[in-house]
């Protein structure tokens, strides 16, 4: 059975015994933790395994032209992992309207602004419509090099989309390696336990009783050390 974000989050809340009205850890909090730890685990998983299970294809990403520089660019349609060699962006190609398998024929090659100058030294590497390049700058933009003489309305992009792009619908199946779910749970439970163990700085139980207002800030969770400190203050 597929696991949904809601199942996972409520399971964690139940284990942490946070299923009463005044719970300290809320559902949204738990979902946020899911995204934080899920990103870390998924990024490691993709780097370690040659898998494209989490590759997301955006077949029609609009190409814009910078009004000042006239450089053509796209906005990355989703958050991606910042892997080595920009591997979070798996490919950019001409859109399927140009060729149904355009990703398999003309692909944009990665470069960087500082490395791009060398490309113009030779005819074979020179950026051109049949040999286009892309580089990242001014995030979330991806600039396209070699399309100066043509107008391309769209490009197709394949991205290793981050796990933290959690959809609004919590009942969707999580896009996460299922064998890593126990590790994800464990890490969130550790964080939850740590969160619950940290004592509050101030007690606010709604009772206006001057006598009960704590006068000493708790400086340690070590009870013995705290007792000694209090005793010294009393003396």
């Amino acid at each position, binding site marked *: 059975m597929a696991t949904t974000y809601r199942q996972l989050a409520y399971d964690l809340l139940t284990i942490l015994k946070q299923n009463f009205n005044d719970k300290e850890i809320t559902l949204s909090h738990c979902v946020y933790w899911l995204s934080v730890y899920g990103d870390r685990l998924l990024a490691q998983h993709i780097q370690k395994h040659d898998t494209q299970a989490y590759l997301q294809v955006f077949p029609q990403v609009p190409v814009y032209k910078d009004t000042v520089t006239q450089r053509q660019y796209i906005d990355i349609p989703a958050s991606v992992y910042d892997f080595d*060699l920009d591997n979070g962006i798996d490919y950019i190609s001409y859109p399927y309207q140009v060729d149904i398998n355009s990703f398999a024929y003309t692909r944009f*090659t*990665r*470069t960087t602004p500082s490395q791009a100058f060398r*490309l113009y030294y030779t005819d*074979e590497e020179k950026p051109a419509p049949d040999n286009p390049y892309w580089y990242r700058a001014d995030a979330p933009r991806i600039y396209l090099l070699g399309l100066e003489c043509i107008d391309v309305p769209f490009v197709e992009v394949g991205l290793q989309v981050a796990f933290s792009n959690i959809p609004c619908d919590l009942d969707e199946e999580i896009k996460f390696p299922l064998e890593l779910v126990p590790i994800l749970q464990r890490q969130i439970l550790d964080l939850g336990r740590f969160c619950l163990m940290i004592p509050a700085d101030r007690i606010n139980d709604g009772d206006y009783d001057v006598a009960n207002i704590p006068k000493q800030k708790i400086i340690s969770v070590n009870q013995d050390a705290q007792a000694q400190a209090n005793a010294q203050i009393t003396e």
Partner: protein
Amino acid sequence: MEFSFADLLSIDEIKADVLVNVGDLDQKLLTPGFYSRRVKRCIDELGYTTYFLTHFQDFPTPESLQLFIPSGAFNLNNVFAFNGDCCDVGGMQTVHNKRQFLMRGKTSATQHFGYTSRNNDRNNDGFFTNVVGDSEILFYAENNGIILLSDSCRLYDRIRVVFSGTPSKIDEQKIIPPFVAEYIINQVTTDALFALKSKQPNLRLQWLDSQAGLENKKRDAIYRLRHLSKSERFTLYEALGRMNY
């Protein structure tokens, strides 16, 4: 060695193997143009060593008697002068090479720059005897990429230049003879690994592995390209066997 044009391999066919060897399947380590250029360089190197590609090109006899060697040509094999055009060659003559024949060309029929050379019929030099006049024989020299034609070449309509060609300049996608493909794959793989090891020193072992069989393959490739075909050899044997030269 002759080969069929239909059997030639494209640059992409070579790259298909090289990319697997280098482990750069998505071409993020090196650009597609880098691989293409290395393949072209490699086939050009074989061409410079073996002259396996022969081209010829016809030019209208220039008024200035100066002919620029076309791009993609090196190592002049023959120069001919003829009347008519490429479809109706008539009155063909061989244009011979004359050592150090230098001239500034002819801008018009009336303007005559003259020429210098070691063997000049206007040179009253006792050392040279039996000098043939420039009106009797067609000759040329090459200087700085320009073929300088003698005055007598003006009598002919066209000049045909036969030269060794630079294979990568052919305006075709398929330029690799099949029997040198193994060498080119190995050479380009080695070149790519050499380029990559400056950033990833751990690739040095792979580079050395790739280099291991390179010399043998290069030797084989050159041997195959230089090797005379059987027909050519048999004709040569027969010609030499007559002993009437």
